[in-house]
């Protein structure tokens, strides 16, 4: 009997693997001959609500993965930085991002900042925006700054031919994304409860499709998936429950995620899609709330404690990961960082110190989006899985 959830994932896979963004081009074409606009954004976090309120399609751009050979992109970046920017340049020069009318570069790290400059030099006719997110978490300083920054971005989008981002329109978009956030968390909750029903490679594909599809369509897709996957009768195996952390920007190849699962791990939480789950709570905006301020407040108060967000001195890093381990009843953590990813790798010593303090087993490795050999990772994940199940109690 065919599995409806698998069919949905096949659909997602086709959308994600289409590096030419055909579905975006299709969305832009309207029946009356006019054309809508789409704006790309890079990881980690961009408030898609603002783009949506301008009537544009927000499209997450995370590189070509292992399906794109980098030839020209390598010429623009040093060998000692991550793979993502060279992949984005390769896509741009190869016309794979032509469907996008503009690009937003959030202040994730120096590399993304440099990429934004390179992009503007290479594609001067394309609209580009560098989005500064606050590193001062005081509402009076960082909050005001960020709300103002978002208003500037909204004005720019209007200038690109978008709708005026009125408070009413932005409130409407926030509500749409609140629904999306709720459903997203429901899917992740099902995986936590029954990882045998929601393999992480499937969930990853489902969420990645959400970077491309209109939010309303993606919400419907997730509801359908949730209904189908929850009815599955898969056998639960004696696999350890693990969290994968550190892979929040440059994405691992699908083969790596499959390898971790095949090696006998149930991934019950991950940060592959951190940007899409950046705001941890629904905004529940009212007609009285000023929506730009509400987005800024949510960023300051309810956002994920990722490596790209300022962390005040005195609060040990890794505490959120430890809390996640407890909440998810995870038995270990796999730290997967892109090679040369400063935010991920610089946090690792503090994170491992926090895990060690709590006696939580962990292992770590590095990858690139085009990593093709998984035998080493298979061994590492397999022995980690065995060590959790056989030696954490027996040793």
């Amino acid at each position, binding site marked *: 009997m065919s599995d409806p959830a698998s069919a949905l994932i096949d659909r997602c896979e086709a959308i994600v693997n289409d590096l030419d963004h055909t579905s975006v081009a299709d969305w832009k074409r309207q029946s009356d001959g006019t054309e809508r606009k789409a704006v790309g954004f890079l990881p980690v976090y961009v408030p898609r609500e603002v783009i949506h309120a301008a009537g544009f399609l927000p499209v997450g751009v995370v590189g070509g993965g292992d399906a794109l050979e980098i030839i020209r992109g390598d010429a623009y970046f040093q060998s000692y930085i991550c793979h993502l920017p060279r992949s984005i340049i390769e896509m741009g020069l190869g016309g794979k991002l032509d469907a996008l009318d503009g690009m937003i570069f959030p202040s994730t790290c120096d590399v993304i900042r440099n990429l934004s400059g390179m992009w503007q030099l290479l594609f001067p006719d394309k609209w580009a925006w560098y989005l500064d997110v606050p590193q001062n978490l005081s509402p009076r300083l960082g909050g005001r700054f960020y709300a103002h920054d978002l208003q500037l971005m909204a004005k720019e989008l209007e200038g690109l031919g978008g709708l005026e981002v009125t408070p009413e329109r932005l409130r409407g978009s926030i509500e749409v994304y609140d629904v999306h956030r709720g459903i997203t968390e429901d899917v992740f909750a099902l995986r936590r409860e029954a990882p045998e029903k929601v393999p992480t490679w499937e969930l990853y594909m489902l969420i990645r499709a959400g970077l491309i599809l209109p939010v309303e369509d993606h919400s419907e897709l997730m509801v359908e998936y949730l209904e189908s996957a929850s009815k599955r009768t898969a056998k639960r*195996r*004696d696999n350890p429950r693990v969290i994968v952390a550190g892979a929040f920007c440059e994405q691992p190849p699908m083969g790596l995620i499959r390898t971790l699962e095949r*090696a*006998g791990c149930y991934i019950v939480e991950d940060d592959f899609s951190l940007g899409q789950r950046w705001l941890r709570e629904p905004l529940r905006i009212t007609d009285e709330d000023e929506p730009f301020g509400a987005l800024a407040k949510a960023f300051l108060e309810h956002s994920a404690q990722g490596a790209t967000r300022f962390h005040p001195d005195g609060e040990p890093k890794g505490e959120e990961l430890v809390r996640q381990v407890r909440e998810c009843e995870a038995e270990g953590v796999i730290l997967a960082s892109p090679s040369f990813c400063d935010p991920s790798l610089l946090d690792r010593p503090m994170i491992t110190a926090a895990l060690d303090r709590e006696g939580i087993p962990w292992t770590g490795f590095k990858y690139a989006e085009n990593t093709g050999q998984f035998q080493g990772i298979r*061994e590492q994940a*397999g*022995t980690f899985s*065995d060590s959790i199940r*056989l030696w954490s109690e027996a040793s």
Partner: protein
Amino acid sequence: MTIAAGIDVGSGAIKVSIYETGPDGAETRHALVAERIRRRDPTVVTRESWELALKHAGMVAGDVAYVATTGDGENVPWATGHFYGMTTHARGALHLDPTARAVLDVGSLHARAMKMDPRSKVLKYRMTSQCASGTGQFVENIARYLGVPAEDVGARSLQATEPEMVSSICAVLAETDVINMVSRGIDTNDILKGIHMSMSLRFAKLLRSVGADGVVLITGGQSRDVGLLATLREALAKKAKNLQVEVRNHEQGIYAGAIGAALWGAWRHDYLARKEAS
């Protein structure tokens, strides 16, 4: 008493074991099955081997409390859990020879040396690189080219008088070496021992790099090859004199992975039962 099964899905053969463990630590064997894949669908061979093992044990699937897979058996649908090959070979080796403190697992496509503690916890390991030279599949291919049945390779190697080494780095080069030897009229027994010598040199390096100490048990598909055992002992005596090791093999060495999987499966079953009860 806990009944558990181990299914070792290898590149060349499927091995299945069914064991019963008791609270006193007794480990009783009920079935051991090995079936060559021989270009068939491995999933079909796995299913058939499993059913044959159940038949040998006089059991039905429901009698088995935990089915553990190892090797490439991650996707066996009826499995309860999966253990990594190193973990299971170490446990299987300890079962076959309780004095073993290191394992040399020589399979179809790779070989690996492991040093372990008295509980079979792997302390250090090294694997051969990606080239198939010096592994079971390579030996079998050469034996086939030479017209020697695989089961006779070891005995023929022992009869060699003037062996010649082949490349231990690359299977293609090694095959070329063998072709040259055949054309030069080198005796088949000498060619076979030359292959064993090359493999043993490589394995001696692996054992030295893990710091093997004490009894080393050969497991995997080549564990019954007496020619390999002899040349490995010679290689260690010549090239690793500082290693205090005694290399042994075992009649059931090929089943070590499947045995280890079954025994760990039984342990996990009992552990989970205790955890649930407490």
